[in-house]
């Protein structure tokens, strides 16, 4: 059974009062997420990521198509017991303290008082909220609110967790902590579905991704497939490169580009085709020293920009 499954999920809005025109927020989204995966749902702003999440949470109703979570229709009570959700830029009742909020949400699951307190305390520890947990939420910074948001999503030890921009508002230290938390969730067998426009997070965490742009699914699959992991060149960093040897290599076309990094230190872009060992040998013989040699692979960003630009141009003058 898939953790998440959508079939031709579509959402149109009617915009305008006098002559309503349809606005396409999401068109025919079909995807599936297996249990235990960390799934990245990527796309630029306005692509339909939040719309999809809201459809999965039944905060909005689909115009057509279906969505199922753990085999049951999205939004059913059965499903809600087994999932957690972190909305984008979460807002909670600011007259409550962090503890009180978590205990309130926990009470909706039917936990007894002692268990509520225990769960709240444990999760606040896990997301790194210390003594501030007794302050009213109106005094919390964005980053702290984000952590509370993550905590409330995990109250019921969910089987599937939905994060909408989980890293938003966090400093680098915070982002690292949350990345580790997501990996811990994966290790526990939890399915993590998160939407983001920050690609480095997806690269670091996800086993599979889907990319949406302008309401349509543009690509999906395992990262390795998407990126093909094709090497399309090399980057050679060397120091104490003698000038004439470099010029000669450039002229011969053995070096495509030389980026100076310091006195006599260069990052050299080498073309695909010729193995770099020969050039390395020649330059070393001329007196240069090797710093690093890296294959250049297409990054997710390159792929993303290519796909999204394509999708945007498809939409043309809409």
């Amino acid at each position, binding site marked *: 059974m898939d953790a998440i499954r959508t079939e031709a999920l579509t959402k149109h809005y009617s915009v305008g009062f006098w002559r309503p025109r349809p606005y396409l927020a999401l068109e025919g989204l079909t995807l599936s997420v297996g249990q235990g995966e960390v799934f990245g749902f990527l796309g630029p702003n306005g692509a339909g990521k939040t719309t999809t999440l809201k459809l999965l949470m039944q*905060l909005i109703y689909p115009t057509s198509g279906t969505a199922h979570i753990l085999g049951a229709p999205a939004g059913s009570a059965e499903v809600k017991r087994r999932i957690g*959700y972190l909305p984008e830029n979460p*807002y*909670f*009742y600011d*007259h409550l303290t962090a503890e009180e909020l978590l205990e*309130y949400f926990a009470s909706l699951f039917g936990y007894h008082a002692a268990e509520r307190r225990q769960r709240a305390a444990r999760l606040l520890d896990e997301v790194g909220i210390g003594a501030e947990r007794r302050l009213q939420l109106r005094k919390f910074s964005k980053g702290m609110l984000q952590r509370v948001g993550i905590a409330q999503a995990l109250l019921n030890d969910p089987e599937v967790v939905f994060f909408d921009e989980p890293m938003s508002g966090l400093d680098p230290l915070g982002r690292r902590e949350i990345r580790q938390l997501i990996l811990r969730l994966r290790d526990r067998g939890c399915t993590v579905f998160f939407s983001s426009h920050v690609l480095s997070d997806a690269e670091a965490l996800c086993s599979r991704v889907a990319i949406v742009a302008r309401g349509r699914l543009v690509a999906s699959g395992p990262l390795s497939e998407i990126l093909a992991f094709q090497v399309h060149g090399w980057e050679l960093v060397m120091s104490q490169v003698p000038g004439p040897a470099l010029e000669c290599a450039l002229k011969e076309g053995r070096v495509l580009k030389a980026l100076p990094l310091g006195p006599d230190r260069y990052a050299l872009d080498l073309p695909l085709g010729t193995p770099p060992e020969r050039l390395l040998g020649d330059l070393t013989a001329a007196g240069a020293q090797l710093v690093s040699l890296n294959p250049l692979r297409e990054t997710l960003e390159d792929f993303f920009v290519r796909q999204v630009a394509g999708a945007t141009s498809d939409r043309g003058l809409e």
Partner: protein
Amino acid sequence: MSAIRTVGTVAVSVFRESVRDKVLYNLVAFAVLLMAASYLIGQLTAGQDIKIIKDLGLAAIATFGLMIAVFIGIGLVWKEVERRSIYSLLSKPLSRAEFILGKYCGLGLTLVVNVVVMVVAWYIVLAYMATTVPPEVRAAWPAPATDLGMLRAVGLILVELMLVTAIALFFSTFSSPFLSAGLTLGLWVIGHFNADLKNFEAVVDSRAAAWFAHGLYYVLPNFSAFDIKQQVVYAQAVPASYLATTALYGAVYIALLLAASVAVFSRRDFK
């Protein structure tokens, strides 16, 4: 978890929020002060002190209650949707109907507590009044100062307030606070003119208009029915059947509004 317990959890949360709301405290404090001040006002009235205190007390309870019902009621749902705190809430095992009912019961609980506080303050002032006045004067009063019969008026006031809350909640499910306040208060005012609607044909020539007005009379909530303040101040008889029918009318209307609120809210897309 059963629906009733879920509704109760939300209700307690609403109650807790209103208790922490400074505006509410100020309102109730003001009402209590007014009760105390009514003792002074009574001095102006050439011997009618007790009547003034009774009248003022009932009017204050009704008015402050109305303000609480409207100004909290209009934001009950709207605030949650606007600020999007509803996103995380509805992802928990809580249906939209339970949410609406929980909000309503929470405000209802708040109203009951506030009314009780005001009634206690009021009876204290009345009791004090009774002690400062010689027995012959007390004997001439139509009813004792701390006449518990006045609680019948308070009871109907409470039903009225619950009805106003239901109206405010209904509007809150789909319109902004400003508009909701206007519509709710508007309905409250019109609900007092019911007698005029019934007698429209006496004023207007067109039969169709009179029929329409007559129809409106039956459909619109009749708020003047809940007002027995004058009767209880003079300790006049109010039949139990009147109290029962009026309360039942209120309850049915409330149920209608809550059902409509749930229906509207269940179909909404949250932006």
